[in-house]
């Protein structure tokens, strides 16, 4: 019972209270750079989720042998190998998406959210809970990437879910085209900062309102 509760808490932490992008503001480079469309956000989000989860599991499984003086080189080795494997798998399985994401797949290596989870969580917790933590934190990051990609694509291109064929293959799918073209700023780097800023502000606003509501309930 309490196990289930802590599982749920951990997921909520990854997705909301400790979201790597929204709260810890980690891994902003890929987050800002690739989220110009939903499918790009989803692709990089899934890749990061897989790398984060596997690196958490591997770091946790080898934590008995990881010593303080060599822990950083070991994290780097594990993460870099995983990312290289993911890159090869993307090239084999989703060549078009790989071309679209370009350099940002190999750059997952430099996503500090991954090293942060290895250092803070996986190196001192069991494999099972590290797996859960990786899924939760990676899921939070991926959801944020998808949300930003969705909004920026909608405003910048005027389309919804365009080019899903990059992920699932088959014919070119143009998604739902609402307007012809859009507000181009949303696609440029400043648009990424605006979108992220609004997302962080929105999260804080919701948290504050909730806290207020909870306060009222307590006082009654």
């Amino acid at each position, binding site marked *: 019972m309490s196990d289930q509760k802590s599982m749920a808490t951990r997921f909520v932490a990854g997705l909301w209270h400790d979201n790597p992008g929204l709260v810890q503001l980690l891994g902003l480079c890929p987050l800002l750079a690739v989220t110009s469309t939903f499918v790009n956000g989803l692709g990089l989000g899934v890749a990061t989720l897989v790398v984060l989860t596997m690196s958490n599991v591997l770091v946790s499984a080898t934590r008995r042998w990881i010593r303080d003086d060599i822990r950083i*080189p*070991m994290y780097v080795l594990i993460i870099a190998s995983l990312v290289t494997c993911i890159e090869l*798998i993307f090239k084999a399985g989703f060549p078009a998406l790989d071309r679209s994401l370009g350099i940002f797949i190999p750059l997952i290596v430099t996503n500090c959210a991954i090293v942060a989870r290895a250092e803070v969580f996986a190196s001192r917790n069991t494999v099972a809970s590290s797996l859960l933590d990786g899924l939760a934190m990676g899921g939070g990051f991926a959801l944020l990437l998808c949300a930003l990609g969705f909004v920026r694509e909608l405003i910048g291109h005027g389309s919804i879910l365009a080019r899903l064929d990059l992920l699932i293959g088959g014919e070119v799918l143009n998604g739902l085209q609402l307007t012809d073209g859009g507000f181009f700023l949303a696609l440029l780097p400043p648009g990424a900062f605006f979108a992220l800023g609004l997302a962080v502000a929105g999260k804080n606003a919701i948290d504050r309102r909730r806290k207020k509501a909870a306060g009222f309930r307590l006082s009654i």
Partner: protein
Amino acid sequence: MNEPVGQRTGNPSIMQSGLILAAVAAICTTLVASTFSLTRDRIADNERAFLEQSLTPVLAGKSFDNNILASALIVPAPHELPGTENAVIYRALAANKPVAALFDVTVPDGFTGPIKFLIGIDLDGVVLGVRAIEHKETPGLGDLIDASRSDWIFQFAGTSLYDPAQTAWAIRRDGGAFDQLTGASITSRAAVNAVNQTLLYFAANRDNIFTAPAGSGDADE
């Protein structure tokens, strides 16, 4: 299951640390190597399919009946074509008569690394089409050279060494005839120069290009 935190500190010896690190490195290398050997064929297939798929648009609908991929002529670097890497020329023929030449060139002067262009030129030296098929240009700025992102690269179709005149083979900012991409003049310059240099090469070597046997003297793929 629940061992105390911080057990891994305590009497670390350099030798042991080195051995652990070497073991992890060996395991990681094995992982990468096996993934590579599992995916190698798929990746090569994908690249071939992608090349075939991207050769079609730079031919601009010209009909041909030879096997273009087998017609590849590899021009080893250094050469007169743009870039410092090996270039590949594909020859399109119809009834054994030359129709067009497709140049696969990689130029080093993109804004964020090399750009690989496919440039199709017909027998009269008129550009049929140009595509940037591999690049790492800035998303939202330089990556607009990609035909899937904007139609900027289409402006080369129909140009030749005389249209515009050789002196106008530059972007507008440099006094030329070609629109530049906003915020990406380096990328635009690289594209204009690559096409221009390829046209010059084609004008100088047109006959050799179509008569040379497939493959090349020292580079054979």
